[in-house]
């Protein structure tokens, strides 16, 4: 297991991050981060909460820009793109939000049809067929007339997934895709991610905590902590890795290199059991 990435740039890399440094509110989120996402593979980003996994996705999509370094997607330096170029790139990227982010004024059908209506002039029949196909893929064709407020969290996530894949993008970014899914839906989503990857060659990036689920779908895992990559490899390598980082993050141990407690003063003193308590 390595403590840093030494991947060489080549055509098989869809996302290439080099020397990414980001400081938010005085906290260093990324410290000269190097990371490669290979084309046509499923890559998982794991790490403790607050370590910047979602922030990393925002850098890839140009929602955020780092203080130093560069992020290249399909050869394009995201931070240097003009707005039109960035939007053109985003049309080729699907993004599954942590909280689904469905448009609450529209029903399920219209939510999935929204990108098609905005960017194409396809006939209504074709839009209908594409939308129903995507909804069928996530098992929610029957829910097409429902409003987002009528969906459970897991259903909303599947609708958001259908919307993210409606254009058959080159890259899909999944932010916590397994949260709130029941075992049946979880299994179907895992199959869907794998199927999209295998049949259409779509590159997938997953941000998740569930190692067991990730094992079934990911080709490569990056473990991020303290602003850098602390471990990487295929799921079996990561699972059997004995480093303190992987043991703590994947084993859920409170003690280890990642502090469970947010920095605070003396506990006994805070409770008034020691002199000098406030």
């Amino acid at each position, binding site marked *: 297991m390595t403590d840093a990435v030494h991947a060489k740039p080549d055509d098989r890399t869809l996302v290439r991050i080099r020397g990414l440094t980001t400081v938010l509110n005085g906290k260093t989120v990324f410290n000269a981060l190097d990371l490669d996402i290979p084309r046509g593979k499923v890559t998982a980003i794991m790490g403790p909460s607050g370590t910047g996994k979602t922030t990393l996705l925002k850098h890839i*999509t140009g*929602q955020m820009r780092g203080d130093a370094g560069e992020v290249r997607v399909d050869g394009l330096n995201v931070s240097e793109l003009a707005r039109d170029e960035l*939007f*053109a790139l*985003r*049309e080729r*990227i699907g*993004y599954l*939000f*942590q*909280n689904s*982010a*469905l*448009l*609450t004024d529209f029903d399920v059908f219209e939510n999935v049809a*929204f*990108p098609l209506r*905005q*960017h194409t002039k396809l006939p209504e029949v074709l839009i209908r067929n594409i939308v129903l196909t995507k909804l069928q893929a996530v098992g929610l064709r029957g829910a097409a007339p429902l409003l987002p407020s009528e969906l459970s969290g897991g259903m909303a996530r599947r609708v958001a997934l259908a*919307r993210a894949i409606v254009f058959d993008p080159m890259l899909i970014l999944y932010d916590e895709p397994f949260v709130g899914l029941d075992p049946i839906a979880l299994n179907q989503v895992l199959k869907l991610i794998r199927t999209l990857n295998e049949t259409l060659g779509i590159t997938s990036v997953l941000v998740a905590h569930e190692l067991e689920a990730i094992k079934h779908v990911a080709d490569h895992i990056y473990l991020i902590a303290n602003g850098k990559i602390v471990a990487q490899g295929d799921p079996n390598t990561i699972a059997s890795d004995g480093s303190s980082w992987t043991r703590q993050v994947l084993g859920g141990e409170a003690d280890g290199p990642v502090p469970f407690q947010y920095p605070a003063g003396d506990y006994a003193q805070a409770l008034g059991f020691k002199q000098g308590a406030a």
Partner: protein
Amino acid sequence: MNTRVDHGNSVTQSLAQIGACGLFLLRILAAIPLSLRHVRETVRQLWFVGAMSLTIIMVCGLFVGMVLGLQLYHVLAIFGGTSASGSVVALAIYRELGPVVTALLFAGRAGTSMTAEIGLMRATDQIAAMEMMAVDPIAYVATPRFLAGLIAMPLLCCVFCAMGIFGGHLVGVNWLGVDNGTFWSNMTSSVDVWQDVINGVIWKSTAFGAVVSLIAVFQGYTTPPTSEGVAYATTRTVVASSIAILSLDFVLTAFLM
């Protein structure tokens, strides 16, 4: 000393807000050509901020006209001039009360809902989702609402004025016995279409519509994505709109007269 510093900070922040609001207006105007692709959204918003505000505008217009007719009748009766009540009611409504009260009601009814809706869209990542789907949220969310407010306000103001004059007529003629012919003839002879209706009703209410819609959309779009942030933004919409309407009313009146 601290108070002076705080005042300085709040003035600086207010100026920064006004500057940011001005830049936001430029973004909204620049997005008008793109938003023409979303005409359905503009029509939907027009229905929401215009048609859905009709009830409150009509009811309030009626009662403002009625109370105006009642008050003016008793004041004019002292001088034996009750026959002029029709013209005074019309002038007061056309020149000031119509545009100002409509704008204040519009800010309370439509402005707050615009702010809250956009603020919640931001809090639930809907704005970010649009950005990620390569849809410009300014063109899809902000500009249609701004245009809807701009179009709806003069129309609502016309409805308010009509209901106000109807209310004044109801009280003055039907209740207190002012002659019907005198009421209307005095009104038509004293009201100038250009000065009172075009300047007073149309221009003022269009300006108020632009200001209220801009403030409402800006506050919603820039609110922190929290429930507290949305609540504060909604309040700020009402406060800032009210101040802007009344101060702009003075400026416009001074110029238009």
